[in-house]
């Protein structure tokens, strides 16, 4: 069997893509556990005043992070994750999680802030941008793989 340089690079890339998702799963699981502990402690000292944004805070990293990354690993889609898209996506999760925590803190204290909308817009905007970036990245890869004139991994 002859291994070409391009095959080795492809395997490395696949491995790095998979490890990117696995790292994402671990990071989002840790974030989810931290959020659960944080909201439990916060609710404990909240004189029985609760906010769903605080109580269910851990769901943001769990659903948008762990669950999504797991689905990606199990389905193999995308075949090759983009590092830039992954970074934007994780920043988006962090942003909406912090926004939810702040909304919970403010609701429990009995106040609000007009700046909270920035978190939702930026967070979900980044997550949407990450999906778009991944789509463009995958399309470009597919185009390069089918175009004989395109040099792989340049």
């Amino acid at each position, binding site marked *: 069997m002859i291994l070409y340089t391009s095959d080795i690079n492809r395997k490395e890339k696949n491995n790095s893509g998979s490890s990117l998702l696995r790292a994402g799963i671990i990071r989002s699981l840790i974030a989810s556990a931290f959020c659960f502990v944080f909201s439990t402690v916060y609710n404990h000292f909240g*004189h029985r005043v609760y906010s769903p944004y605080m109580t269910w805070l851990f769901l943001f990293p769990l659903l948008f992070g762990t669950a999504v990354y797991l689905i990606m690993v199990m389905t193999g889609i995308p075949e090759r994750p983009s590092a830039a898209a992954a970074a934007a996506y994780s920043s988006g999760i*962090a942003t909406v999680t912090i926004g939810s925590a702040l909304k919970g803190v403010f609701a429990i204290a009995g106040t609000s802030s007009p700046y909270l909308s920035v978190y939702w817009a930026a967070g979900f905007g980044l997550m949407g941008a990450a999906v778009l970036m991944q789509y463009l990245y995958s399309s470009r890869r597919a185009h390069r793989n089918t175009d004989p004139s395109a040099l792989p991994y340049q």
Partner: protein
Amino acid sequence: MKKWKILYDVMLVVFTAFVLLKTFVISDVKTAQAESTGIYTETSADTSSSGSSGSSSTGTAASGTAASDTSSSGSDSTAVITENSYQDDNISITVTEERIDGTTVYIADITVSSVEYLKSAFADNAYGRNIKETTSQMAEENSAILAINGDYYGFRDYGYVLRNGTLYRSNYSSKNDEAFVIYEDGSCETVKEGSASASSLQENGAVQVYSFGPGLVENGTISVSQNEEVSQSKSSNPRTAIGMISPLHYVFVVSDGRTSESTGLSLYQLASCMQDLGCTEAYNLDGGGSSTIYFNGQVINNPTDGNKSGEREVSDIVYIGY
């Protein structure tokens, strides 16, 4: 890519710090939307120089030694001040302490000759967000005879704020939010903010509008359900309420709470208390650590947020004085 990620994370942290400071710390003085044209325009200029200054009395209803004193009031009348009462030609106040459902409740029964003696005051005499003083500080600065904490309007961006005839804020977050309105003739009512604009209330003679809620008693009937609570709160708490028995005859009620000696009241228990006192209209003001009642120069309840004792700084007070 890593640089951009780090830069974004730093921006996120800085922005979050800004939002927290802006919400809880940074003061923001604002201006009134419509100046007062009513009865308070004549008296507001000299509120600090005149006044009956009950603070010279040493007696309080809760713990002080009995005292009987007289002092000159702002209306040139002679005030008779005892441990638990104040009386002059225009103002009559009796403060009592009761135990209701394991909770210490302070009840001030007030009769005034004109609604102009029922006033509001802002911390640092300024309207805005995060401008705070303790109830007793504001009471002393305004020579209040009796004072309770108000609705802590400065902790929120929404809800009507109309004080001493001047309109400061006319927005609301939900049309079902309830405001308590005191009119020039001394009558009161609870209104839904979506059904009456703040400017229309002012045009109809409103001199004070508080926005916290909910309304406790309306037309003599309890208007909260047994399980209803402020926001998501489900526990007994320190409470502050204002009620009207008849025009120019009011009650201020403050309950201690969150301690082993005094558990606090639910909204329904508070509403029942107000109804039992004969209130035809009653309204819940800011409670918890804010709940404070000041009479004749002293705080007579035990303010606590459940963690530490002492007065919390708030935005405003409701007070009786000249």
